[in-house]
């Protein structure tokens, strides 16, 4: 395999960001191809026919899809900053928390923002429990990965920026009850590889604010 890397992504997406962070941690050069999610390119659909989603990493014309799969692939192919630990037990533990973030934290925080009434109260209760559990995993360390960021930190990136913005747009205030997670978020944002590919806060506000009612109705992102 040669070294031509292209990333089909979208700057507003935290999933796209996950892949960029991984590539930058390894110090590898890539071309970022911006996808308009309201008008997906033929190339994106060609390279991800099953899910038709970003991010897609193209490594010498070979596509890899799904952000965690891509991040693990980058870790295995490129030397440099280790993203997953070497020890099998620690790898399993990192994957466990990555899954916890994607399967519990993410939908619970999302639905807390985009529902109301009793349903919202239920989601908020679930989100609070999950955030507390995740905060517990930090155990006073700088990052989930210890002294430097690893898989869990990358997968948790939404907590460092996106969720805060979303909460502000809808008028919710969940994250501030978790000072350790907020502290982690600031430390995460200050990592050089992260700073280089973190979108401006306004970009995310400009996505959510004008689409607030439609996203609320659909309970899912709306791109047009």
């Amino acid at each position, binding site marked *: *395999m040669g070294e031509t890397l292209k990333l089909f992504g979208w700057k507003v997406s935290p999933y796209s960001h996950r892949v960029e962070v991984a590539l930058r941690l390894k110090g590898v050069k890539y071309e970022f191809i911006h996808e308009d999610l309201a008008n997906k390119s033929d190339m994106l659909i060609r390279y991800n026919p099953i899910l038709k989603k970003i991010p897609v990493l193209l490594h010498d014309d070979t596509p890899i899809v799904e952000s965690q*799969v891509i991040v*693990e692939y980058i870790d*295995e192919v490129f030397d440099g900053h280790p993203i997953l630990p070497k020890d099998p037990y620690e790898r399993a533990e990192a994957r466990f928390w990555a899954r*916890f973030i994607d399967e519990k934290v993410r939908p619970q925080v999302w639905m807390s923002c985009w529902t109301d009434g009793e349903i919202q109260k239920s989601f908020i209760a679930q989100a609070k429990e999950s955030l507390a559990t995740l905060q517990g995993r930090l155990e006073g360390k700088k990052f989930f990965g210890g002294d430097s960021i690893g898989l869990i930190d990358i997968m948790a990136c939404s907590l460092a920026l996106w969720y805060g913005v979303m909460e502000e747009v809808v008028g919710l205030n969940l994250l501030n009850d978790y000072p350790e997670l907020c502290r982690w978020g600031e430390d995460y944002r200050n990592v050089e590889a992260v700073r280089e590919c973190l979108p401006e806060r306004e970009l995310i506000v400009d996505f959510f604010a004008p689409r607030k009612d439609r996203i609320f109705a659909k309970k899912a992102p709306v791109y047009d």
Partner: protein
Amino acid sequence: MASEKGIKLLDFWVSPFGQRARIALAEKGVEYEHKEENLLAEKSELLLKSNPVHKKIPVLIHDGKPVCESLIIVQYIDEVWPDKAPLLPSDPYQRAQARFWADFVDKKVFECGGRLWKLKGEEQEAAKKEMIEILQILEAQLGDKKYFGGDTFGFVDVAFVPLTSWFYSCETCANFSVEAVAPKIVLWVQRCMERESVAKTLSDPKKVYEYVRFLKKRFRIE
């Protein structure tokens, strides 16, 4: 807990997730203590201690250290015992493919299958349409290969095959035929069943159906 040597698997007889771990352990020829949890009664202290976050099976306890989540357990087993019956390919791109398809199976098949036997009317019809699409995608991915991994039984096969014991329940409850929409998948199941690890692990589809009927009565879904 930390000083206890050996391997224990906390499981529930009909769980396809537990069966993934059992198949992986059998393929590797690893000896372990199988501990059946009664999920219909109170969860054991060991389970609650080993998986405090989710309180779910399967949990693999290796020398006192717990590993949770079935696909994570299978990858762990593959990494700890890499020399026999490797489940993930050695090439990083092939590994990424295997992880993608195992994740696809994980997210789509069981959840949609559950809707097939839990729901009725229009919702069930929608789930049926979705399941047929999912099966056709998997059928196309399998193609004419012996296994999803190619010539060797691998990660995606381990992820998917235990879920196939639930096909009979889905077919009966929702009135459709897996064989009619995905004949290659059905043949693939038969090939997998020729492996001792699979044959000795998978639940009898009729027993799964009895369990599904029990659950429907218990939760008053009829």
